[in-house]
């Protein structure tokens, strides 16, 4: 059954949104959208380095994404102007990654698959990676949920309850690096952070609690994957961008139904 490319694509997309749904809520709550961009763009450099040196792509991508996440978190902790630093790092990493990719023969002709993803080409090995990474991220989020939400609401209140806000931030950074690394095959480096931001942003106005927002965000992500895959199948559109376009369409469609909450 897993030989069917469409089922593999659906399973891979589902795994990604199971993790990006709740993780994306933290991205929205903590205004970390550019942080996702920086990590994802750095991943292209990771792909180029892995292929160039013959290393496993997932490990190389993960390594560079984690390094970028750590660097950004370190700069933010030192009080640098974060948006400027992120702009430099995100675009610099993408540019250096593209230059590096041009030196890797196999990658040069196939670059589009890494930039925009190729969910219809997902293999069994990819499924193992993406389900492994997504399950790990989801498990960590569930395990640390109360502390992470408290630290997001107010760091002083979290510290008074014995929670270390810096540690929760670091865990979020690592979780984002992991999901970027495993999702890059599916939606690509340019659009993976969109999957973090758009479903969570759509869910915000329809949720009354952090948990409901996480569930709704996951659901919207899953519907986006289904719509994007269908569009790709029937209209022959590129699958990764179609998924993000579907998510954006859902966001716009839901706008008029937002209600002010008491």
């Amino acid at each position: 059954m897993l030989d069917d490319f469409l089922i593999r694509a659906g399973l891979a997309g589902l795994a990604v949104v199971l993790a990006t749904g709740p993780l994306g809520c933290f991205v929205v709550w903590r205004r970390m959208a550019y942080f996702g961009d920086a990590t994802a763009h750095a991943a292209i450099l990771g792909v180029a380095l892995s292929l160039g040196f013959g290393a496993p792509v997932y490990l190389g991508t993960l390594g560079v994404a984690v390094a970028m996440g750590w660097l950004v978190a370190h700069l933010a902790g030192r009080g640098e102007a974060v948006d400027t630093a992120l702009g430099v790092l995100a675009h610099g990493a993408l540019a250096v990654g593209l230059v590096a990719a041009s030196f890797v023969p196999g990658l040069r002709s196939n670059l589009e698959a890494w930039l925009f993803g190729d969910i219809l080409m997902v293999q069994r090995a990819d499924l193992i990676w993406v389900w492994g990474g997504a399950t790990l991220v989801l498990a960590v989020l569930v395990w640390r949920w109360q502390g992470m939400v408290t630290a997001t609401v107010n760091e002083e209140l979290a510290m008074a309850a014995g929670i270390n806000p810096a540690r929760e931030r670091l865990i979020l950074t690592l979780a984002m690096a992991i999901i970027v690394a495993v999702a890059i095959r599916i939606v690509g480096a340019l659009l993976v952070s969109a999957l973090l931001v758009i479903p969570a942003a759509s869910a915000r106005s329809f949720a009354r609690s952090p948990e409901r927002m996480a569930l709704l965000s996951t659901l919207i992500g899953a519907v986006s994957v289904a719509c994007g895959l269908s569009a790709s199948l029937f209209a022959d559109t590129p699958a990764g961008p179609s998924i993000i376009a579907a998510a954006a369409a859902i966001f716009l469609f839901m706008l008029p139904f937002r209600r002010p909450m008491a």
Partner: protein
Amino acid sequence: MADKASLANRAPLIEARGLTVHLPGAERAILQGVNLAIRPAEIVTVVGPNGSGKSTLVRSILGHVTAQSGEVERRAGLRIGYVPQRVHVDDRIPMTVRRFLSLPRSVSDADAAAALARVGAEGLQSRQIARLSGGQFQRVLLARALLNDPQLLVLDEPTQGLDQPGIVAFYRLIEDIRRETGVAVLMVSHDLLVVMRASDHVICLNGHVCCHGTPQAVSAAPEYQALFGADSAETLALYRHDHDHAHDGALLNARHDHEHDHGPQHECEAHGHA
């Protein structure tokens, strides 16, 4: 509540001795040799100009900031309820009052309702935090701080953003809670007159303890008047505070802190009216 006369003689819940804190990047110490003790059921207020180290003092007593020297001694198993300065819950996070009370530890519906009722915020459970008025939100924060049945409440500028009637009502609420539960209170405040009226012991801080004692004694102290102006003392007389428990003799008069050898030109005066 315990026998009033014995309260002041009880051992402190928490005591700081010679607390000196340098914040990273700052030239001089933000706190220098600060002593502070809070006894059961006592309301202690820290007043001082902006940048005098009030919040740093609170945070180092809570253990959120590491002191370079000095020590903080807590009674074993001390339960603290904390209301930090300037809490703002972003409207991006959907959060009902009920959910907020269960962060990070779940509490029962009955406990949540009781805490809200105690602070006059009953029925707010299903409201979104970001949509509360300033006064409602401060009460919800106070309710959250009361949930673990604290022996000490630490309130860092709890009336910021409230109007004058709201400020008066909030301090009255604190005094009521203290009277009913016997909780001790450490408060940082800008609302000089109202807060001193509600305090048993006032600490005038400007990097070091300028003077401390009863509100009357502190308001008469030259160090206090140098910091806040002579008017502040005269106005306080109108609000003379009725103490509901006695202090021991040492606390009745302002004790001037001369550990730092300021000489005739007191250090407070150099920073006056900051």
